[in-house]
């Protein structure tokens, strides 16, 4: 069972906007004043940081402990919701769809209830896309246009939930199908008609330092916490 780090529940918090981190090899500055770089990470992986999370109520303190417990010291990967509410496109129609884990069980929230999240059935991958593709077609049945910088998730069969970000909108056929570039490259192939989640994107991640996620509690009642996550495989 895959558990969820509910970003919305712990809002407001200071969030370092998710970014793609990678590995670059530099050789230093050459005689011609050029600094060659070699990027070997194949596109990078997601990182996100949360700080100044206020745990001012009993429920929030308990919820903070619960997700740490479910994360099992970093042994259990966790799905982190990315904060995209304001940046997401407006998608009409669709319905709330339960987020299903790989074993078929429903992904539970911190309090044990099931999480229902919109997978935006009105947004699908058009024509499929191969593993590591960076250009895909997305069909939006009814809603606003897609813009560069917007993020979406795909729930892959093997790689679980992975997030991608639109880099450019190359083409718009005027009927709701957009050809876009994405980063990182697809972790797994997409089939034609596979639904994409713009409303509630997220990614399978783990805490960068599971030892540093415990909350600081003052007066035995109030506290604050922070955590950094990195995409996991």
């Amino acid at each position, binding site marked *: 069972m895959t558990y969820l780090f509910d970003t919305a529940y712990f809002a407001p918090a200071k969030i370092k906007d998710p970014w793609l981190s990678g590995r670059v090899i530099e050789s230093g500055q050459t005689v011609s004043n050029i600094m060659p770089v070699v*990027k070997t990470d194949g596109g*990078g992986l997601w990182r996100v940081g949360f700080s100044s999370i206020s745990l001012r109520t009993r429920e929030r303190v308990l919820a903070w402990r619960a997700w740490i417990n479910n994360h099992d010291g970093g042994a259990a990967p966790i799905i982190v919701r990315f904060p995209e509410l304001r940046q997401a496109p407006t998608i009409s129609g669709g319905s709330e769809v339960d987020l299903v884990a790989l074993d078929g069980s429903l992904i539970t929230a911190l309090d044990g209830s099931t999480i229902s999240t919109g997978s935006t059935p009105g947004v699908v991958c058009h024509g499929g896309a191969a593993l590591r593709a960076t250009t895909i077609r997305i069909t939006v049945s009814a809603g606003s246009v897609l813009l560069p910088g917007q993020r979406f998730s795909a729930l892959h069969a093997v790689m679980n939930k992975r997030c991608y970000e639109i880099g450019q909108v190359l083409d718009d056929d005027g009927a709701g199908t957009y050809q876009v570039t994405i980063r990182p490259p697809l*972790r797994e192939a997409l089939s034609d008609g596979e639904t994409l989640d713009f409303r509630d994107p997220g990614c399978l991640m783990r805490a960068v330092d599971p030892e540093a996620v415990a909350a600081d509690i003052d007066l035995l009642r109030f506290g604050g916490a922070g955590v950094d996550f990195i995409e996991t495989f």
Partner: protein
Amino acid sequence: MGFLSDWSDVAKAQLAGAHVRAALLMRVRTEPIMRMWGGVGYVEVPAGGAETDDGAIYSGMGELLGLPVVSQLLNGASERITFSLAGTVVTGELAAIASTSAADVRGAAVSIGFFVMDDDWQRISPVAWPWRGLADMVSVDRATDQGRIIRTISLSVGSLFTGRKRPDTGYWSDPDQRRRSPTDTFCDRVKTYEQGTTKVWPE
């Protein structure tokens, strides 16, 4: 003919440019074959060179901690390099390396390859396999870093001319020379020498 001979001019220009997107591959011919790359996620690699299966999937799930520097070996030179693999990623292949079946790894062909990708992270060159060696010793290392345990598997790989025995010409004692050439008395006075001995001539 160099290993880049079948690369297009575009691919060569990408490799020679200031911003290179490269994929580093490592293939160990165990059973089953271990295929790892330095990037993230999976990547398909075409057949050719050291890779025999078209569309082989290389895994970049954090197994490969780094590729050591390799050298071009000339005139029978040899070298031994060590790969560090993540000891926490227990795939079937890595488990075989770290377990008592490490003897199955010894002698397995190890190939290092690379290819370049364009600005869209799509492969634009065939895979070049510039270095090949034979797997030798496996060791499991355990270190602590600020209270955390870091476990790695080290795979020592030798080039084709690497051997464990001392070179035949390593010793110039009489028994060694007699072993090479039974009637040769060239070294029969070596045992009378000591370090710093001055041999006066004529006697």
